[in-house]
Structure formats: structure tokens, C-alpha cells
């Protein structure tokens, strides 16, 4: 391998004056070729690598497909292979003899072999991500237990899957479920000998749980505030407190938190907001907010006679469960798909919305579609009222729905599969056999280059569409959100 390379070198000092320009030219040309090949390899061009090395390719592709849902792994693989590619290519190009020599070492060649395959897979995989939202595709959702560390408590595992399958859905519900699971987790904890509960619990015990939950579904703002509060609480525990007493203290505090900041708050907001509902009102709401549901039921229990319009959207159809529960309580409910918003605002007198979080610039982050509903209601001069506990208030700000959002798996948007009822060949002969293979459904979207599906979870409603925010501190305008946030979440 080195011999042919050595051949030009000894001659070089002897005839340096003559050969070096030619040698330089040759080297420059080789580098240029290497750079071009590296570029081509990045783009996944099949022509750049040597064709006959197909052995490594299916293996690598298989490995790619296995690690499919986890984007971090293939990305690491890609950078590794890219580095090797860049090292390998100049080595291959410097002299054609080089390549033959290194053929004798199959191990060294394999990484070079599969250079283009992973970039191709990568390019295809990345092309299924909408570029505008590429910052939100950090971690694909976990759907099974593989890869979870042994530290994760079973209660957290169960909670994680409940959240990722939308069984527990909704900001308040997730927050309460998280805290309840944490109580169990804390009771199961034992302090290691060398350290104290205050220092060890958060970083070594709770953090893996939280990471697991994040891998199932990104945590909500309310969960974030609750975790911050809990961490602060843990850090303030006196190290001399006996372990069981400390754990009981934490569990009691968690109970108090749930009671004060969610349960009682919900009752307070419900009674405040239900006062806004008069006889003959037509309440318009979107998707399912637990606090709006409580408000409506409270108003109905108070004897007010009104009717409710529920607007719903794909893919979660949360509005349908709200409509069902309201109907069962005896209310008059009208149910519309999202396309019926124009019809809905014609007769509505009040819009009640729930929140995922209130942002500090007065904007509302809520289920995707809320902004459009608030806009239509604003145009029709219907007051839009947001019911939101202070635990959901956030210090973040956003101007659009793109920076702070959550992208759900696109598969959730696919329509339910329709099984072909008849064998395809009998009825369609007159259309020709070619058409059979060409007729695809949306389920084949992965195979179609350039087709992407975007499944956003949240959107941000501008503050001017919101008339009032009802929280446990009373009725506040959207501009007071940072004040309430500072009061409630930061000065505990």
C-alpha cells in the first residue's frame, strides 16, 4: 500500500523543481475529486462510491431500519460515516493502487462501502420532516419499553404510555397524573448511604423518570411548572430530616399542590366563569378543556338554561367526548367539524376556551385550531374568554405557532385503513392493468418523494382576540399574564 506511494516521493526531492508543479496539480486535482465525491456522497448519489461493494449495504440499511424511529442514532451514524468517508476518499483517490491494496482488508473497506447508503436513507428520512418545524423533531415518541433504563419506576412507565397514546390528554390531567405518579416514586426511593435526600433525589432519581416521560411525549407547561416547584421543594429539605419523614412531607406537599393549584382552583374558576353564562346564551367551545367542561356543568347546575356548540377537529376528536358528556348531563349540544366554524359563530354569544399555557406576551397556546376559532369569533364580535389555572402560566413568549410547538407522529393523521372488499382484478379490467399498481392511498405516503404530513398539536392565539383570562386570581386581561406568572410560579 505504501510502496507505490513511496515511489513518487523519493523522486520528488530529486526533481522537485520540475515535478512539484505537476505533482501539486495532481494533488489539487485529487483533492478536488475527493471533495466532489464527498459532496456527492452527502447527497446520496449512487455513482460516487464504488459499485461492487454491496455486502455492507443491506446490513447497514437493516441497522438503519431497526433504529428507524430514533433519529439520534442514524444521525450519529451519519456523522461517523461522513468522517470516515472524508478520510477514506482522499486515501482512495491519491493513487489508484491504493484502492486495490486496501481491498485486501475488507474490514477497513466496509465503512467506506456504506457511505452513500446512509446518507440516502438519511435524506429520505429527513425529507419526511417538514423543514419549518425541523427543530421540533428532536425525539420520536417512544411506543415500547425497549431502551428505557432500569431506573424508571413502573408507575412512570405506565404514565408514559398513557400519555403517548392520548389516554391522559390535556394539560391539567397530565400535571395531576404526573404528581400522583411522583408520589409513588418518592415513596419507593431510598437514599444511598453517601449522600442526602435533598441532593440525590432530584438529580439521580427523578431525572431519569422525567427523561423517560419526555421521550414518550414532550411535557406540558403545567408539568414543567410542577416539576420546577417540586425540585425547589426537595432542595429546601433539611438534610437532618429522617428519610421517611422527608418522603411523607413531600407527598403531603404534592397533595396540597394538587388540591390548591388545580382542584380548588378549578372550582373557583368554574364558579367565576359560570356567572358569565346567562339564560339563553349560546356557548361556543373548541375541543375538550376540563375546566370549560366544569364551568358549563356548574352553570347548568345553577339552573341557567343555555345551549352549547362544540367544534371539533382531527385527529384527536376531543370535542366529541366533551359533547357526549355534556349531552349526558342534559344540555342541548350542537356538534360541528372544524369546517363548520363559520356556521358556529353565526349564533354564538360567548366563546369559552381552555389553555395549554398562557404565554407572557399575552398569547394563548392551546389545541391547534383554537386561534382560527378565536379569530372568527373576534370578527363576529363575540367575547372570547380563556379559563386557565395559574399553574399553566408561562414565562415564555412566542410570536407565532412555529417556535413553541409539538409535532405529533404523522401517522395519526392517516385515515383508517379500508380493507379492499373484492379482489382488485375482477372489476377493473377495462382500466388496464397498469392502473392497479398506480393507485396508491395515503398510507403509502412514505414512498412518495416530496410528500410530507404535518401534525401540529398547538397553536398560538394573538392576545387581541382574547377578551379576558379567568384564573384563581380573578379576571385578568391577557396583558397581566407575566404578573400572575411571577406571583404564582416564581415566588414560591
Amino acid at each position, binding site marked *: 500500500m505504501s510502496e507505490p506511494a513511496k515511489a513518487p516521493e523519493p523522486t520528488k526531492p530529486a526533481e522537485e523543481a520540475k515535478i512539484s508543479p505537476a505533482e501539486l496539480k495532481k494533488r489539487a486535482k485529487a483533492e478536488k475529486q475527493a471533495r466532489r465525491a464527498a459532496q456527492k456522497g452527502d447527497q446520496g448519489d449512487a455513482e460516487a462510491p464504488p459499485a461492487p461493494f454491496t455486502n455492507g449495504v443491506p446490513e447497514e440499511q437493516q441497522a438503519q431500519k431497526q433504529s428507524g424511529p430514533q433519529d439520534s442514532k442514524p444521525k450519529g451514524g451519519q456523522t461517523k460515516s461522513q468522517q470516515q468517508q472524508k478520510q477514506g476518499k482522499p486515501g482512495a483517490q491519491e493513487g489508484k493502487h491504493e484502492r486495490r491494496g486496501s481491498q485486501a482488508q475488507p474490514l477497513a473497506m466496509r465503512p467506506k462501502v456504506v457511505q452513500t447508503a446512509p446518507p440516502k436513507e438519511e435524506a429520505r428520512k429527513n425529507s419526511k420532516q*417538514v423543514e*419549518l418545524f425541523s427543530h421540533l423533531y428532536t425525539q420520536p415518541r417512544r411506543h415500547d419499553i425497549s431502551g428505557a433504563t432500569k431506573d424508571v419506576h413502573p408507575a412512570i412507565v405506565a404514565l408514559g404510555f398513557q400519555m403517548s397514546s392520548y389516554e391522559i390528554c390535556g394539560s391539567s390531567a397530565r400535571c395531576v397524573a404526573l404528581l400522583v405518579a411522583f408520589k409513588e416514586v418518592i415513596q419507593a426511593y431510598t437514599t444511598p448511604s453517601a449522600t442526602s435526600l435533598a441532593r440525590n433525589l432530584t438529580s439521580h432519581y427523578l431525572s431519569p423518570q422525567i427523561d423517560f416521560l419526555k421521550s414518550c411525549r414532550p411535557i406540558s407547561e403545567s408539568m414543567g411548572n410542577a416539576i420546577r416547584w417540586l425540585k425547589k421543594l426537595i432542595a429546601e429539605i433539611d438534610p437532618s430530616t429522617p428519610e421517611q419523614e422527608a418522603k411523607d412531607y413531600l407527598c403531603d406537599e404534592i397533595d396540597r399542590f394538587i388540591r390548591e393549584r388545580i382542584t380548588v382552583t378549578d372550582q373557583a374558576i368554574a364558579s367565576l366563569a359560570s356567572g358569565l353564562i346567562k339564560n339563553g346564551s349560546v356557548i361556543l367551545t373548541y375541543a375538550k378543556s376540563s375546566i370549560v367542561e366544569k364551568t358549563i356543568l356548574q352553570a347548568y347546575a345553577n339552573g341557567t338554561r343555555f345551549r352549547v356548540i362544540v367544534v371539533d*377537529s*382531527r*385527529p384527536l376528536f376531543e370535542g*366529541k367526548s366533551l*359533547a*357526549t358528556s355534556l*349531552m*349526558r348531563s342534559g344540555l*342541548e*349540544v*350542537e*356538534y*360541528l*367539524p*372544524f*369546517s*363548520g*366554524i*363559520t*356556521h358556529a359563530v*353565526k349564533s354564538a354569544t360567548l366563546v369559552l376556551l381552555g389553555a395549554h399555557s398562557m404565554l407572557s406576551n399575552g398569547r394563548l397556546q392551546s*389545541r*391547534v*385550531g383554537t*386561534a*382560527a376559532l378565536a*379569530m*372568527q369569533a373576534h*370578527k363576529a364580535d363575540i367575547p372570547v374568554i380563556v379559563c386557565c389555572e395559574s399553574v399553566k402560566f408561562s414565562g415564555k413568549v412566542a410570536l*407565532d*405557532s*412555529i417556535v413553541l*410547538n409539538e409535532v405529533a407522529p404523522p401517522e395519526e*393523521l392517516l*385515515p383508517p385503513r379500508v380493507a379492499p372488499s373484492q379482489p382488485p382484478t375482477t372489476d377493473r379490467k377495462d*382500466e388496464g392493468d397498469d*392502473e392497479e399498481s*398506480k*393507485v*396508491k*392511498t*395515503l398510507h*403509502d*405516503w412514505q414512498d*412518495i*418523494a*416530496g*410528500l*410530507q*404530513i*404535518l*401534525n*401540529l398539536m*398547538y*397553536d*398560538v392565539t394573538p392576545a387581541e382576540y382574547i377578551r379576558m383570562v379567568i384564573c384563581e386570581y380573578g379576571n385578568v386581561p391577557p396583558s397581566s399574564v407575566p404578573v400572575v406568572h411571577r406571583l404564582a410560579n416564581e415566588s414560591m
Partner: protein
Amino acid sequence: MPSSTVAQTPSLSTYLKSLKHNDIETSIELFISLLKRRQIKNARPCAIATINLLLRVVGESRIRDAQQLIERIREVGRRLVAAQPREMTVGNIVRRVLEAVREVAERDQDAANGGDSGSISMPSTPISGEPQRRPDYRSRFSEFTPLQGISTQPQDMYARAQAPGERPGTSSSFMDNVAQRPPMASSVASYAGQAPSTTSLFSILQQHPPGRSPFATPPTGTQSPALKSSPTRSEESGADKFDMKAEAINSIQDIQQELDDVDNEISEFAQDHIHNNEIILTHTSSHTVQKFLMKAASKKRKFTVFHAEAYPNNHLETYATIINGGSANSQDADERWKPLTSMGITVILIPDSAVFAIMSRINKVLLAPHTVLANGSIVAAAGASTIALAAKTHRVPVVVLSGVYKLSPVYPFDTDDLVEYGDPGKVVDFQDGEFMDGVDVVNPVYDHVDAELIDLYVTNLGGCAPSYLYRIVADHYRVEDIDLSAKAEAEVEGG
């Protein structure tokens, strides 16, 4: 009854096939039942079916007199419009055919009169405000039709001056005055059907065929209307009765050709409106929009399309259009085309709820309407109003692509009446009995979008602002055809 259609669901294609061997009355009845049962829906299939039916009606009628032919078409049109008044394209096509027939009749009458006093062959009475027959479709359109002002004639004004007490909308007996007052040699802007054919030197120099606006859709195969007028006058003096029907059929076939070409003509303007690196938002499975984008893509423009799925009424067709391009079940094999993604365009499918969220990054919104109203507003698939409003909020231009055949001269007041409500079973399955029993499920199929929310119309005649549409209406329809009811016709004839 022919048994060949037993196994197929009635649709446009089966109807067109049956047109060939059914008699007229059966065809009309079949079309009416298809309209009532919504087995033919959306603008273009209805337009195609109407024009084919009217072609047969005219072709088979043994009527020689223009007025009788017009009356026959009006009668058929009345029945069709009554079957499904919200399918305004049916009425549009009927009125286009009437305009064509009237124009042919005028030309023949001019030839017959030899350009004598040669005034209007039909009364230019503004129609009085008669409500439509169907009780729940309240539309009064006489005083507020965009053509109202245009129909003013020097003769009219003279007549009205004579009878000051009369309401401007009623028919007056001005026919008597016509012979007395020499017609004014007016500059023939685009008074649809009202341009007087005069014998003055000026009119010879004008060379406009009477009754036809020079700005209307040119009949295919002719360079300019002016070239046609002079030779026909001299040739047809003897055999004009027979030729009138043939000419009428020719004009109707021109309209038919226009219907076939409309998508191609609209997509000719694609390059002017779409540049590189645009992000475009569109909605529903409209073929017009898809062909428009395909044309831009074929001119090597690279752009991104966000496609809202229009659930629950159109989402399956939208998926099919995105994935497969032209539908596999299309009427003729020429209608297939490749999907946009095959041209290298990134298409991103989004649910309707996400339109506001992404609107801040959209450069342009493309909408395809169901109907275009004369004041510049449209009736489009449900969800279009939300999209247009969000676009206005974010200052994104909204472009509406529509053929002129969708442009309706009717201008109803109550826009709520235009919205059709569809099958609630598409929103919630009827099997969900408890839910359907206790909850009122509503599924509006269309949305009315105000003219202020629309920035541009691109029609097969070119681009125009919403405020210009009334002129296009005036170019293509006649005032007296707006109201197809029998009462109006009787008034006109009796007056």
C-alpha cells in the same frame, strides 16, 4: 328503459352516455333527479351535463322562431334551476346558452332587416323583482343586479321620462317609442345585448356585431367577432331561419369547448403568479388549482404547497389528488395527470385546524370556488372562509381560480341561503346512535367568502380584481335572462 346502467351508480358519465339514446323529456327528468339526489354535484360536472342537455334540446327542437327557442330553453332552464337552486352553475350555463341564442337571433334579424331601423330585437326590460319559486331560497335581484344600471338605454330613459310615476324596475311600454326616436349612435362599450345596431356611418365604422360584447369570451375558432359579422349578413338573407338553429348549436358548442379548455386557459397564467421558493396554501381537491400548480412546476418553478385536507366532505378526494394526480375514475382518459410531488414539488398535508398556525409563513393562498357571485364574493368549500380570514389577518394575498362559467349574475341578499348542509353521517357515523340522538350534528358543505377577503381572480379571460367581475357578468349574460321564471317572460311579451 335501457338496462345497461343497472350496475352503475348514476353519475355524470352515465348521464352523458344515456343522453345519446334517451328522448329529451326523459333526459331532462333524469338530470333533474340526479341534481335533486346530489348524484351530480360540483360546478364542472353540472356545467358539462347542462350544456350537453341543452345542446340536445336545441338540436332536437323543431322550432324555427328565435323567441320560441328562447322560451323553450327558458322553460327547461327553469326546471333545472328549481331542482337544485344552490347549484348555480346550472343556471349560469342556461343563461349563457340563452345569450348565445339571442345573439344569433339578433344577428339574423339584422340580416333580415337589412340594417333598417334595426333596433333591439328583444325588449331590454329590467326584470321586476320576482322571488324564486322555491320558498326557502329568497333572492331578490332585480334592483340590485349589477346589470341594472347597464341596461339603461336612451330609449329607456325617454320612456321613463314619459312615465315618471312608474317604478324603475317595471316594464314600460317603450316599444312604441322606439320607432319614433332614432337610436343614438352610442359608443358600444360593453352593454351586454343592448348595443344598438344602427345604420349611421358610425356604426359601420364600429364593426361590432350587435348584441355581442367585444369583451366576452371569444368564440373559439374566430379571430375577432368583427370579421364574422359582415360576410354572414349578406349570405344568410335567404336561409336564415334554418341557419339560426345551426348557428345556435355552433355557439353552444363553443361554450362546450370553453368548458373543456377552462383549466388549461387558467393555468396559462400560472407563471405570472408563482415564483420560486414560494410557499402556497391550498384547500380541497380542485383540479383547476392542481393544474395551475402543475403548469408552474413544469416551468421549473420550485415551490412548496401546504394542502389543507378539507375534512369531512372532501378529504378522501384530496388525498387521492395529492397521491395520484388526476383521478382514476375521471370521465375521459385525457383528464389524468401526474401528481405535483412527481414534479419535484414538496407537498405538505395539514389538517384544516392548522391553517392559522402556519399562515404566518405562507406567501399566497389559492382557492377554487363553487360559485362566484357578481359582487366579487364566492361560495367555496367549507373552511375557505377561515383560510381567507386568516390570510387577511396575516396580509397574505388570496387568489381565486375560476372559470367564467362559475360566475353567476344572481346576487342574492341572504348569503346564508347559499350554504348547503350535507350529510352529518360524515362527521359522526350514524352507528353512534346515542350521540346522534342527543346531539345536533351539523355539516355545512360550503362557506361564503366576502369580496373584501379576496385579492385577485384568475379566470380563463385573465386576472382581474373582485371589483371588475360585474363587467364580466355583463359581457356574458343578458339582463332579461337573470330571472328565468315564466312570469317575467310573460310580462316582457305583454309589455
